């Protein structure tokens, strides 16, 4: 279980860039059940990515705490290296353009040496075989192993990023707008893939997106974040019963297909 309790985060202003200081998260609490898939929706600038960075331990909250399995985040991360992973929206910027697909995947596997990366049970297992099995997990053909990122389509590259994210056998996967830059048809495939992987490997997801329809299709429950405050939390099947004015207008504004 992931418990985020009353977390606050401000960024200091800078006279150089003219940025004013700002409290981005103003006391956010959120719970994700073990093995669950929880959605986080909100407009751009509402603080979704900031919350993701705090959960990933990339930044520290100014106040509040984050517990995983009842253990404070930093302590949990030390005890479980590599057990938390992330997929970002910008897949082209998140891979090394000079690495082949195989190198990208193996970097993730070998970075976890000795920590039980997926398929690493046997020290003699052929590393290439591990990369192949990761590609199979995300429904990509094996011949792509020798390809470079620029030789792949957006959908293929995002699948490679997902394969890399699950390479170290994580328990928790943070998906920050992971499908937002993909085509409709590819979005649908990737959502199905993610749902399958979560079941297969019993992972817990925090799924961040601005598209309510996508979130509803994969998540069990949804948090609505507005200007750094959680306005509402509801189970997906109760979506029509949201009460807060923000969640309500987000919902009513959707142009359903």
């Amino acid at each position, binding site marked *: 279980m992931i418990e985020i309790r009353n977390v606050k985060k401000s960024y200091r202003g800078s006279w150089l860039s003219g940025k004013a200081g700002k409290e981005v998260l103003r006391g956010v609490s959120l719970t994700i059940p073990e093995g669950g898939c929880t959605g986080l929706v909100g*407009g*751009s600038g509402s603080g979704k990515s900031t919350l993701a960075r705090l959960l990933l331990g990339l930044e520290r909250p100014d106040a509040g705490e984050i517990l995983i399995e009842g253990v404070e985040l930093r302590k949990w991360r030390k005890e479980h290296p590599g057990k938390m992973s992330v997929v970002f929206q910008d897949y082209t910027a998140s891979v090394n353009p000079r690495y082949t697909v195989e190198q990208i995947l193996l970097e993730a596997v070998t970075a976890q040496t000795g920590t039980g990366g997926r398929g690493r049970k046997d020290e003699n297992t052929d590393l290439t075989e591990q990369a192949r099995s990761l590609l199979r997990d995300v429904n990509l053909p094996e011949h792509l192993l020798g390809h470079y990122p620029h030789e792949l389509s957006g959908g293929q590259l995002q699948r490679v990023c997902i394969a890399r994210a699950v390479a170290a056998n994580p328990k928790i996967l943070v998906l920050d707008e992971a499908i937002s830059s993909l085509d409709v048809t590819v979005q649908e495939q990737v959502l199905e893939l993610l749902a399958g992987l979560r079941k297969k490997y019993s992972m817990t997801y925090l799924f961040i997106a601005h598209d309510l329809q996508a979130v509803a299709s994969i998540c069990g429950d949804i948090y609505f974040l507005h200007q750094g405050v959680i306005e509402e939390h509801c189970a997906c099947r109760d979506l*029509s019963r949201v009460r807060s004015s923000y969640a309500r207008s987000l919902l009513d504004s959707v142009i359903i297909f």
Partner: protein
Amino acid sequence: MELLKVEGLTVRDEEKGETLAENISFSLSNHECLGIIGESGSGKSVTCRALLGLLQGKLAVTGSAAFGGEELIKMAPQRLREIRAQHISLMMQDAMNAFDPLYTIGAQLAETFREARGMKRREAWEAAAAVVRSVGLAAPGEDPARVLKKYPHQLSGGMLQRCMTGLALALKPEILIADEPTTALDSINQRAIVENIRRLRRETGMAVIFISHDLGVVKYLADRLLVMRRGRIVESGEASEVFEHPQEEYTRYLIESRRRMSGQFRRAVSEGGAHD
């Protein structure tokens, strides 16, 4: 009345020997909204940019695009700039990049009015204020200067995109080309933009070319539809007809994918009943 008639538009990358858009033909009448859907890389943006002479790099454009008796393809750059300022507006996905980070929103909006409409400083500033009001970024009685005096990074992506829409619409073009204007936005900002476009169509008879992979939005706006794949039009027709009875396998696949993805949401909202 036919506003724009495109015939056999083809865009080739001579260096790579690739055809980016091939034999594209369609026409657009007053007041009409043409939706364009299709996978990314299928040539939707290239087609629209070719019309406005905005393609970057060495690309060969052939075919014809007649706008009110004038031929847009190979038109002199100066005249094309006038057309873009006065008759055909383009709205792109990435509003963040459309604004210069070093100038305030107000200064940039006003500058556009001075250039495109030959307005004086004060009049242009008033026009900029009207833009901010028209897209709901300043309520009646609220001072629009609060938004106008901000730099691009001080506004959210949704607010910037709304400024862009407001600007495109304030120029009251005969044709608005909107290239995925709502893809990166939450539903509230998306809805604001879509309703603004509808309002202007009603009020001024503006015609629209609306590119999006959000089929819900396209269905809501478009009268006619083009489905593109790999640089070609694979299907076209009345939007309602194509959505109800798609003829091509690719169109069916697109529609079914989105239906599957929105299914859960649709059920939750409709089963929940009492949705008023």
